[in-house]
């Protein structure tokens, strides 16, 4: 501690460890550009979620995937995880001069961070419907074999249009509830009626386990797939825009703040790096790379990854003009 000779004001303790952010999402960057104060929404093992004036920022350990609202950082060796910061919901986080003071524990400098700004345009040309369908088959089968069915994963066997011997297990109470709701979203999308889509989406938000409920993960996956397909096919003002708006608006007040944030980003075509990579391989890549990226996706969270794959699968079916068997499963 030092005392400023010009005043009696005690200066800030100079012993706070400082770490450099390793990555910063494009939305997080815009929210941290100006000095201000945020309020901690939740503190978890690998993440600290903070609400700022312009939206939420998630401070995450750098092994967590890059995302539009994420700031990746490496903790000092003497801290086991983010909860070691001792911060609680309701606490304050200050942004000052390009640095973020995480309570009394840690200061994060933002300047060195690599920017994560996902591009909706793929590096390669999008494949034909038949190629995409083949990749979709690989993705769904991989998810059935390796995914987690505590959320909506047991709906995977109903995604592909051809009847098959695929079996992703019995439906739990959330999958049962999600089945007709997702079928309703699919049907509404097919009819293209704005009101129907909005109503179907509202009825689907906030269902299932997880800090980001399963149905939200599925909707995020769905809208990402639809938007990325349209962006790369050069389709302007397609039905994906209607779905995106319905999701962004429908999420408000109906789900957790974090999930609401993720849905808003997905509705802008901005997913985490793993979801973006999976969609890119699904639409432009070879089956082996689809399998690889699906496995990466499935490793996210507990059922979040699998639930997102459910949504990407439905969105892909919608985009290539096919129908799932969700309706028949009701």
């Amino acid at each position, binding site marked *: 501690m030092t005392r400023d000779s010009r005043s009696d004001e005690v200066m800030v303790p100079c012993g706070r460890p400082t770490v450099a952010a390793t990555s910063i999402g494009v939305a997080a960057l815009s929210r941290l550009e100006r000095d201000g104060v945020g309020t901690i929404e939740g503190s978890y093992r690998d993440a600290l979620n903070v609400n700022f004036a312009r939206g939420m920022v998630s401070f995450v350990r750098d092994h967590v995937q890059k995302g539009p609202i994420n700031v990746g950082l*490496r903790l000092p*060796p*003497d801290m086991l995880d983010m909860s070691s910061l001792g911060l609680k919901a309701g606490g304050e986080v200050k942004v000052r001069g390009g640095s973020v003071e995480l309570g009394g524990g840690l200061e994060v400098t933002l300047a060195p961070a690599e920017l994560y700004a996902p591009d909706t345009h793929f590096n390669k040309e999008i494949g034909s419907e038949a190629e995409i369908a083949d990749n979709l088959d690989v993705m769904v089968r991989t998810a059935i074999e390796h995914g987690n069915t505590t959320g909506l994963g047991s709906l995977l066997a109903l995604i592909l249009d051809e009847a098959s011997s695929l079996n992703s297990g019995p439906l739990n109470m959330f999958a049962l509830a999600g089945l007709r709701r997702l079928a309703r979203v699919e049907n509404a999308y097919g009819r293209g009626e704005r009101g129907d889509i909005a109503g179907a989406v509202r009825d689907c938000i906030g269902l299932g386990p997880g800090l980001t409920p399963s149905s939200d993960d599925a909707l995020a996956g769905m809208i990402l797939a639809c938007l990325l397909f349209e962006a790369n096919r050069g389709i302007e003002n397609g039905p994906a825009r209607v779905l995106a708006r319905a999701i962004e608006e429908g999420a408000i007040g109906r789900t957790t703040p974090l999930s609401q944030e993720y849905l808003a980003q997905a509705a802008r075509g901005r997913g985490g790096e793993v979801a973006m990579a999976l969609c890119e391989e699904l639409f432009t890549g070879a089956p082996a790379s689809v399998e690889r990226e699906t*496995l990466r996706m499935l490793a996210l969270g507990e059922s979040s990854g699998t639930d997102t794959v459910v949504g990407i699968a439905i969105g892909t079916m919608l985009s290539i003009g096919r129908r799932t068997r969700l309706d028949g499963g009701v």
Partner: protein
Amino acid sequence: MKISNALSKLPGVAQAAVVMATELNRRVLSEAGFADAVIGQASTSDMVVAVEAADGASLDSAFAEMEKMLKPSEKKPGEASPPTSLDEAVERRPDSNLAFISVPGQFAKREAMRALSKGMDVFLFSSNVTREEEVELKAVSKEKGLLLMGPDCGTSIINHKVLGFGNTIRAGTIGIVSASGTGLQEVSTLVHKAGLGITQAIGTGGSDLSEEVGGITMIQGLDLLEADAATKVIVLISKPPGPRTMQKILSVAAGSKKPVVVNFLGGEVTAPKGSGLRMAGTLEEAASIACELAGAKHVSAELPSEILSQARVANERLSVSQKYVRGLFSGGTLCYESQVILRDLLGEVYSNAPLNPTYMVQGEAPSKGHCCIDMGSEEFVEGRPHPMIDFSLRNIRVLQEAKDAETAVVLLDVELGFGSNDDPAGQLSPAIGKAMDFAKGAGRSLTVVASVIGTDGDAQGLAKQEEVLRKAGVLILPSNAQATRIAALIAKGNAVLPKMAGVG
């Protein structure tokens, strides 16, 4: 989610759900019978734990378990938390220059590229990396002047530190570059047993000498050992390379100013004229030649006379039906070497990794004729520990061979050292005892022959392991090549002697 999974599995719990209290979740819980005023008052930021249990005690257990799982992890004072990424690890130890990578094959290229981009050499233990990815990785490593040991590299000894599986070998003047893990182990332990030692033992990964990869890592290894002042003799080990790659390797090796011993197991290889290269037919011969070049007195590969006598006696005791050698290997290269030797002495050999594709058998199928099974192959190790660590499958197979009336002798390799089971002999001997007893009960005499690949510097202790196996009635030979020859002698008798090396 982890919590709901764990709670659902508890005795007396019919169902458990751990969800955020969104409007829809509250409705679903209510429909499932969890209507509760408290849930009704919860907000979307609140977590609800709903448990349906058979009785109060089960419910109390469930909530006690939940409390335990929700408790934050505690770090011991002074203990640093482990880094969670390569970047974090390098940040903490900026002098790090080697990355040891063992991830599922689909993700190995990405991690290896990351390490190479940081200027690190790589030991890539991962298998199931495609040939194209290996070519891409080695193009990068070569351009950067970095060593990529792998993929599918099980063994290296760098600056006397074992990477992967491997043995404690004294320091010396012999350098090894090997596309075979157990081949490296066999040669290095034989060098040690001869009283000499090694400088470096560089693994290249099993497909480095394929035509597509072209021996990039083997050539880099050769160059490194050439430049290393401590290395006086170089040994190269591989199964037969592709023809173009072989010519390239031999040409580079021929340009070495140091003596080079080449063992391309079973390959019809002639040293280029005037090259000075020394060609070895077996791993044992490679070690022997290397030791002589490094200044050892003549290293004898003669079969011990006492063992020869025991083998002849064992042959005489065979019943009419007992005709065949049955090799059960944890090391793929040793399986291969044994097939090469047995083919010369006994004729064609069946295997799940055969020299001649006509003699292919599935690994799990019953043995046929003379048979050598690589129990470290994919069909055995998918989802299971390697047979160097877990002996259960091999023990079952030993007994199966004993029950087969055509089995004359069982041939085994036993690896000691880092990564191997703490007590291989202790794991094997009960099964061997049962097998021999079974054969005896059926009126047959069964011999088990083994070589133990290890040194007394290994934690398991070579002498102790050999002693345990001898007590179980196993004939122990100092090398896989010798063990194989003895097995042939037991099965076929004196008819093999004219063709057999090591018989005085």
